[in-house]
């Protein structure tokens, strides 16, 4: 039998799932192995807690009210973080969409704003975090603002580029069927940019999480990032590790939701761009 080239070999569905799971399982096994070795040497080792310890701790965090405040900590942290993240991303998406489309569609706007946005996007957002704390105080606003400042320039620039990428033929066609500038934007550009906005938001979610955790680590009283940095003082890896996994899971779910939303609302887009997971 002739063997195909490596680049032409495709795994079956079962093989693909198995191959995809393999690194996860390998990681777990390696962790358990090292954890066992360490715990055998020192049962009080905090660096690599066993899965049962982490399970107990998370059970307490999730389902037992806190002694101090009577709150379910995992729930409170998750809601606080998601609230900040979603608010920040939503505001950024709105600004990004508006200015991305205006910059892309209207040369007069682009000439004025584009260099400004480029310059702004070069400022590292973390460098101005102190300014945000000074101006907006240590409350929710400064944390949301950090996310907004962190991802909006990327969204504007990306959506501007996507708008400019729309075939010129379509804009001309719209004009020949009587569309004015506003109508071209509302009926031709906006609906075609919406699915591209979802793609851009998915790409920027990782960055949004980064800024969220950073802001929470510095000044906060609840939130996933706050908790991780709080228990760091006690070397509580049994809290930190499950929290990190939980954050990754939330991030994955958000990404999946946005992808589903896109394919439900914009079936033509999936076909046009090829399904990019």
């Amino acid at each position, binding site marked *: 039998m002739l063997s195909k080239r490596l680049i032409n070999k495709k795994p079956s569905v079962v093989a693909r799932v198995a191959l995809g799971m393999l690194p996860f399982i390998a990681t777990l096994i390696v962790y358990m192995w090292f954890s066992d070795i360490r715990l055998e040497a020192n049962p009080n080792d905090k660096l690599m807690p066993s899965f049962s310890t982490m399970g107990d701790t998370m059970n307490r965090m999730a389902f037992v009210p806190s002694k101090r405040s009577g709150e379910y900590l995992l729930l409170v942290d998750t809601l606080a973080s998601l609230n900040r993240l979603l608010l920040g991303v939503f505001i950024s998406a709105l600004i990004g969409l508006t200015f991305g489309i205006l910059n892309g569609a209207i040369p007069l706007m682009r000439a004025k704003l584009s260099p400004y946005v480029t310059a702004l996007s070069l400022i590292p957002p973390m460098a101005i975090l102190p300014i945000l704390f000074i101006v907006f105080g240590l409350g929710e606003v400064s944390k949301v603002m950090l996310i907004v400042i962190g991802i909006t320039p990327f969204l504007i620039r990306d959506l501007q580029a996507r708008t400019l990428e729309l075939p010129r*033929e379509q804009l001309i066609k*719209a004009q020949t069927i*009587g569309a004015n500038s506003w109508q071209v934007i509302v009926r031709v550009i906006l609906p075609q940019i919406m699915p591209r906005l979802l793609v851009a938001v998915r790409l920027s979610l990782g960055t949004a999480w980064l800024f969220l955790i950073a802001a929470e680590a510095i000044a906060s009283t609840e939130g996933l990032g706050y908790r991780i940095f709080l228990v760091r003082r006690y070397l509580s890896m049994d809290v930190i590790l499950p929290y990190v996994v939980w954050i990754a899971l939330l991030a994955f779910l958000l990404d999946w939701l946005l992808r589903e939303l896109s394919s439900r609302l914009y079936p033509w887009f999936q076909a046009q761009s090829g399904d990019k997971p």
Partner: protein
Amino acid sequence: MSYISIKKLWKSYGGNIVLEHVNASVGKGEFITIVGTSGCGKTTFLNMLLGTESASKGEILLEGALIPDEPNEDRGIVFQKYSVFPHLTALQNLMIPKELESAKLLCKVFGAKRKTIAAVAREMLAMVGLEQAADRYPHELSGGMQQRLAIAQALMKRPKILLLDEPFGALDPGIRKDMHKLILDIWKKTQINVFMITHDIKEGFHLGTRLWVFDKVRHDPDAPNAYGATITYDIPLGKCDAQIYNEIDTSLEQSRKELDILETTL
């Protein structure tokens, strides 16, 4: 007076002269096919009719008035591709012209008015043979069906001129024949002025009432861009014979050679 008159039209980009001395006058309802080698300025000429490019010198008059230098409802266009909106179904693609007309701010219409517009759009879909595909998106249509939709869309606002930029260039020969029949039917029904660019001389002879050949009259082998193209043949069709066909074919040979040289040097 002629319907469209083109007077001493020139177009140049910097030192590159694309078109020179283009003079013509077109009567109402003429179907003009335009042939020529690639890069000879056919598309530039069409873009000037469309209004996306303006003349360097000279003018184009439509019913005695200067043709506006931005696209409008007077001139419908069908490109080789990207002519229809990918985010709208076939029916929505034909509804949007009327929707824009009656909803300047909202850009969408609802209720009874929407039904009227949909009915008109369905009629048009039936005329181009797409009634079965009303709710399909363009990516679910074949290339020929997409071009039918594009032609129908371009006609929704009853333009004075229909511009076709190699509309069938990407289609199979069999489908192309169907499209020829469609476009001739439409032209006979509406008596609209058509300008159609094609790279297929046979198509040009078969379709139009008048054939224009764009080519360079003067050649400078050292500076291929020093002279522009103009209309070298203006043939009323119906009277043509094989001799003219061969003559045009040989006359274009020189430009083709030059193009080959350009391409090989590039």
